[in-house]
């Protein structure tokens, strides 16, 4: 868990400010920003299937992490989603976990990920 994503910091998380520091903060709350949030939620939900959880966007302000059994936690920024998922699913949210990678691999057409060009 990182203090950088503290609830009371008031600092936009780097994933929320687009790709250009100091410029893209201007469009925070705009149409593209909301579309990106929507897209983010969809992508994360594909990952969270592995953990038996899902998230919803709450008023473009926070994310609600829910378990299939109805437990939920509200978090403001993306990094805190992983903490909530661990809390709910009782397993580490680790992108290097071989079981998670196998799960993701199973959701995609077979490709040679180790192949080099």
């Amino acid at each position, binding site marked *: *868990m*990182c*203090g*950088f994503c*503290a609830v009371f*910091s*008031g*600092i936009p998380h*780097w*994933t929320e*400010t*687009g*790709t*250009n*520091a*100091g*410029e893209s*903060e*201007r469009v925070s709350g705009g149409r593209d920003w909301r579309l*990106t949030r929507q*897209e*983010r939620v969809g*992508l*994360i939900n*594909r*990952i969270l299937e592995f953990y038996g959880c899902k998230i919803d966007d709450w008023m473009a302000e926070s994310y609600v992490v829910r378990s299939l059994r109805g437990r939920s936690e509200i978090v403001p920024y*993306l*990094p805190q989603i*992983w*903490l909530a998922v661990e809390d709910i699913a009782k397993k*580490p*949210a*680790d*992108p*290097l976990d*071989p079981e998670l*990678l196998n799960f*993701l*691999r199973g*959701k*995609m057409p077979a*490709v*040679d*990920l*180790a*192949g*080099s*060009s």
Partner: protein
Amino acid sequence: MTTYNELIPIFVVTGFLGSGKTTLLNHMLKHPALRNAAVLINEFGEVGIDHQLVETIDKDTVLLSSGCICCTIRDDLKKAILELDEKRVQGIIPAYERIVVETTGLADPSPIMYTLMSDTQLRYHYRLGTIITTVDAVNGITQLDDFDEALKQATVADRLVLTKTDLAAPADTSRLTARLKALNMAADVVVAQFGALDVEALLSADLYDPSRKGKEVARWLAEEERAELADHEHDGHLDRNRHGSRIHSFCLIYDKPLDWTVFGIWLTMLLHTHGQDVLRVKGILNVAGVDTPVVINGVQHIVHSPFHLAAWPDDDRRSRIVFIVRDLAQARILESLALFNRLAGGDADRSAAA
């Protein structure tokens, strides 16, 4: 709104006990590039600082509830900078254009970087410049072996300055240089022969300096290419990891554009679980739908706001990401990011991993 490159840069000079930080700083302060600089030091040591604007930092650290040392707010540093700022605004001290912070010899630079990158009051007026780490050529290898602080100071550096090379055997200096390159392939290693030391390059050539136009990124990438060639010369083995260190650096290269949203998801998840072992991540990304390259720069759990370069530094349009990690497998990181990217319909299978 203040644009990023209008912010006042804060440079950090760090290095283990007795490695020559203050001597280097004194030399640097004579350079015209630092004519209008303020200096913050933790304590007045044996070597005095010859500069008109030197303030001390009182030790006052706030450890956030996360308990992770890299996410510690250095409240003393924040206060010292804000006091300087107040005096500057009131005209009590000259208007400085840069700040240089000299750490103690046992300092972990991460909390300093975290404070400068994330504090709400500081981040709208100041930005992090380069991290300059002095390494004693005589004792450097032993210190890297025996002291985590020395290791950390070397791995987070943008510039590694070898000191006391006149007292060390050339073979030892070469060995130390190789060790430092293995630890931190993206940092420039320079020898402090003071008459010839390029102070301008140490200080002004930072990532966000607009006058450099991406030269800093081009330098990282040149280092990575040199390292790749060196690997090929050693029968394809990762020669940079031969020292048996738990810490090593490598560069991932992706041919095709990366999805920015997925990259954010992936990196936050990686840093959530492995942030303490991702000592540094920095690179240049070809982001789908974005014409100009996006620079990322992170230290452990801390990620700098992403930044666009005005143009690509060369004809190579591939995404290249340098990692310095402890006990993390390169192949697993490579595979994980590629898989995540495919979630978004991306096809960024790696083309190479140096």
